[in-house]
């Protein structure tokens, strides 16, 4: 035990001496040692984000360029992960697909969780009849599985990347609101909220300035838990043909379009996009789990 703790102490001391850059490095090092799985998750997430941002640089081909001379080409030196039924490079499509996955994943989770944060905190703050009515409305939204509510929203709005973000964030709002409300109820009883009320501040100011910052830990937990789910949901909707539409590269979409029919002759078409989805969700889950451990050890389940 002692010989493990010592080098960490050294790093900390070095950090104190050498400014913020070193300190950040030291913090990262500590995180990597204490939570190797969480660190691995964060590392994959960072690589994914970089890939998405640098997609035009990293991808060997244009993801939309068809090459009818090279349809169903197996993986080789020219096309590392082979080509699909239109002769499009699978690797390039997976790289550009990460843009769709991250855009939908972050877009839906951040907006959904934030809306839930505000609704849940306000509901907990006001309490009484308002709280009861809000809770009953949330109950209505909570009585569907995620994908069923998302599909219902698609049925109403139609398909396309931004509508999919909307469809995915709708079912997330009540889930985030419920968690944030529970914390808000206890925050409301704290002396500083009483003090703010005694100062005569308005409801909006008390909710946003005094309550919301203290509901941030459960909010972050919910937000990171949503990231993986949102990516999974986007892939499912796109697979069903009710999400992102062709020719936009999206992982779920790559599994659709007869991927199963060509499976025997061109197994690389269904295998690699699925791997990409699993890896992304896996990384976000690990990241979320370790964040939850750090913020609230009581909620630990694995």
């Amino acid at each position, binding site marked *: 035990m002692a010989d493990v703790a010592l080098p960490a102490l050294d790093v900390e001391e070095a950090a104190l001496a050498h400014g913020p850059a070193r300190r950040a490095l030291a913090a990262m090092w500590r995180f990597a040692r204490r939570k190797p799985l969480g660190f691995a998750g964060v590392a994959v997430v960072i690589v994914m984000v970089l890939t998405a941002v640098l997609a035009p640089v990293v991808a060997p081909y244009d993801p939309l360029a068809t090459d009818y001379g090279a349809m169903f080409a197996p993986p080789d030196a020219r096309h590392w992960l082979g080509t699909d039924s239109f002769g499009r490079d699978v690797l390039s499509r997976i790289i550009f697909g990460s843009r769709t996955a991250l855009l939908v994943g972050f877009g839906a989770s951040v907006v959904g969780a934030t809306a839930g944060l505000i609704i849940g905190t306000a509901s907990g703050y006001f309490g009484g009849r308002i709280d009861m009515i809000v809770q009953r409305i949330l109950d209505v939204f909570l009585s569907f599985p995620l994908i069923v509510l998302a*599909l219902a929203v698609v049925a109403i709005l139609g398909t396309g990347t931004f509508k999919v973000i909307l469809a995915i964030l709708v079912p997330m709002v009540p889930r985030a609101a419920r968690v944030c409300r529970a914390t808000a109820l206890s925050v409301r009883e704290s002396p500083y909220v009483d003090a703010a009320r005694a100062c005569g501040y308005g409801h909006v100011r008390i909710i946003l300035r005094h309550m919301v910052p203290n509901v941030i830990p459960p909010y972050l937990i919910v937000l990171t838990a949503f990231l993986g789910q949102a990516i999974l949901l986007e892939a499912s909707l796109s697979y069903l043909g009710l999400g992102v539409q062709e020719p936009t590269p999206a992982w779920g979409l790559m599994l659709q379009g007869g991927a199963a029919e060509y499976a025997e002759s061109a197994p690389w078409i269904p295998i690699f996009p699925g791997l990409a989805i699993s890896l992304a*969700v896996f990384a976000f889950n690990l990241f979320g789990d370790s964040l939850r451990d750090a913020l609230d050890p009581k909620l630990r389940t694995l």
Partner: protein
Amino acid sequence: MRRYLVRRFLMMFPTLFGVALFIFVLIRLLPGDIVQLRMAGEGGFVSEEAMQQERQRLGLDRSIGRQFVDWMKGLTRLDLGLSMWTGRPVTYEIGIRFQLSLQIAIMATLIAIALALPLGTIAALYQDRWPDYAVRVFSIAGLAMPSFWLGILILLGFLIAFHWTPPMVYVPFWVDPWGNLSQLIWPALATGYRYSAVATRMTRSAVLEVLREDYIRTARAKGIRRKLILTRHALKNAMLPVVTVIGLEFAFLIGGLVVTEQVFNLNGLGKLFVDAVTQYDYTMVQGLVLLVAFVFILSNFVVDLLYAWLDPRIRYR
């Protein structure tokens, strides 16, 4: 206790009414008219007159309030209206597919329980040793893998290894048990894996928690055999949260079926739902949404009942 349950039961109805109202009104309020979308979607010019006629046929020319009251009236007779696509009753379309989806759901649940209980217990007993790590990797992978991809991989595996695909035509279990199982076991496995991952995590943490309790230490101090402690004292008490998760996830299973049925090309409720969404079949969408919400709320209620039954300490007021 009884009063609580009665109240809890009655609370289901306002929620269901809210679901019905929400889906009904939203579908009709938002821009984009079904008739226009459907008739113009096929290309070619459609006269305003023909569209008006179609609206009248579907009952869309009346006021929203009127339509809703009619729908609710029908609902009291368990009549969900006619499908806007096939013209047959929604309840009939649901009825002919219900059996298939229910069977997959039950099989997936059994698979999940059969995997989760032993694996979760083993992981807890060997905490932080290799069986624990193996189980954790297995369950984290289950949470990350989309069930439809797992389904595709299963089909792919059979194709490559045996040049075999599961039968395409559904036969009821009592007509041809073997044919039935060889078709439905695979989608059940694909959906059950994710389900088992959630339940395994829960079992592991529940057993871990119970093993730290005082009464386990007491039992050990009394010199009771390990196996007896595990079965009589630990597992029995660890089952409570596990039952909850299994019950709650059963409702989520319906969501999983939506995608899995597509992969295996099964004509169940999930496929019906996806088709209804793509065909703008609004009576079907609202009927299915209501059905799913009903199953969901009902299974939450059953979980509550089980809770009280399993843990005599719990007394609802």
